[in-house]
């Protein structure tokens, strides 16, 4: 797996188009999220010139994972779209807090029947670790995310130091929560062990 990071100015137009296609495939086609898209490309208002992307490719140069990093000093998903998940607490606004969103590590070649199986892959931990390191290089000490509640369990199993910021909220019948993940977290298991988390954020 090869991982590249950077803003749109740092990455080629081919990589950026690949990210948008992959995100459409994961979030719209597979998960059924109702997102406004054109030409099977998924972008939103948080895909800006200053947005940092983390992109994983396989040996065939296909996108197999993506993450989007936003500083909380500018508009971001939790603060703008899901502030209710903080139950009245002010959204973070700090150069050392970054938001992780549109995190996906789906191997479309893998066979599996459940959502968990589809999103549990060796890519997920590596991509999250690379995202944490990338954010740390930009001054982050922790991530915040909007995630399905099950992600909290998987972060724990994988050895990431994460905690919720408020109680979970039911959205379309499923619990969703705001999560904080320390950038200083060390993955406490061997990546070769073969047990990897779902780490999917909005």
């Amino acid at each position, binding site marked *: 797996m090869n991982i590249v990071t950077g803003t749109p100015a740092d990455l080629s137009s081919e990589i950026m188009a690949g990210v948008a296609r992959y995100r459409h495939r994961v979030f719209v086609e597979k998960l059924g999220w109702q997102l406004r898209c054109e030409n099977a490309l998924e972008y939103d208002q948080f895909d800006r010139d200053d947005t940092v992307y983390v992109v994983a490719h396989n040996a065939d140069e296909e996108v197999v994972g993506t993450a989007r990093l936003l500083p909380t000093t500018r508009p971001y998903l939790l603060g703008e779209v899901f502030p209710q998940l903080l139950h009245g607490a002010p959204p973070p606004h*700090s150069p050392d807090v970054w938001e992780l969103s549109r995190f996906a590590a789906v191997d479309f070649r893998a066979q599996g029947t459940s959502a968990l199986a589809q999103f549990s892959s060796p890519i997920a931990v590596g991509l999250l670790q690379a995202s944490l390191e990338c954010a740390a290089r930009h001054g982050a000490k922790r991530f915040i995310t909007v995630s399905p509640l099950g992600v909290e*369990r998987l972060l724990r199993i994988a050895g990431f130091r994460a*905690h919720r910021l408020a109680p979970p909220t039911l959205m379309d019948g499923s619990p969703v929560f705001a999560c904080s993940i320390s950038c200083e977290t060390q993955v406490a298991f061997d990546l070769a062990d073969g047990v990897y988390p779902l780490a999917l954020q909005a």
Partner: protein
Amino acid sequence: MHLSPDGLIRLTLDQLLSTSLEHLVSGVDQDASPPFTNACGTQTVLSGYTEWISANDPTISIGWDWHLQTAVTGVRWVRVGLPRSNLMLTHDTGHDTSWHGNLEILGTVVDALAWREILPDVVAARYA
């Protein structure tokens, strides 16, 4: 008790023990069970999560996993692993408990809640 900039509510164990916690939501894992079978005598595997909150502000949130343990004498609801929460217990000096020690203590606190008594009805109602 106060909400810290890192999003954790810091409080002492005594403050937590004097706080009433109420059930918020519980669910059954959809992916953990083996493929369903109608074979007579097959043991049912049931596991899930439960979430509890306080009524005060800032709102304490604590959740944990469970599974249903079957035995000849009946079934038992058993906590699995350590709780997940927005709490950091502090010593009387004001210093944080260790990360793991905090979770271990929270485990003993939730074990004293009456979750095993209410979960059968809650889970049955949600998935009825």
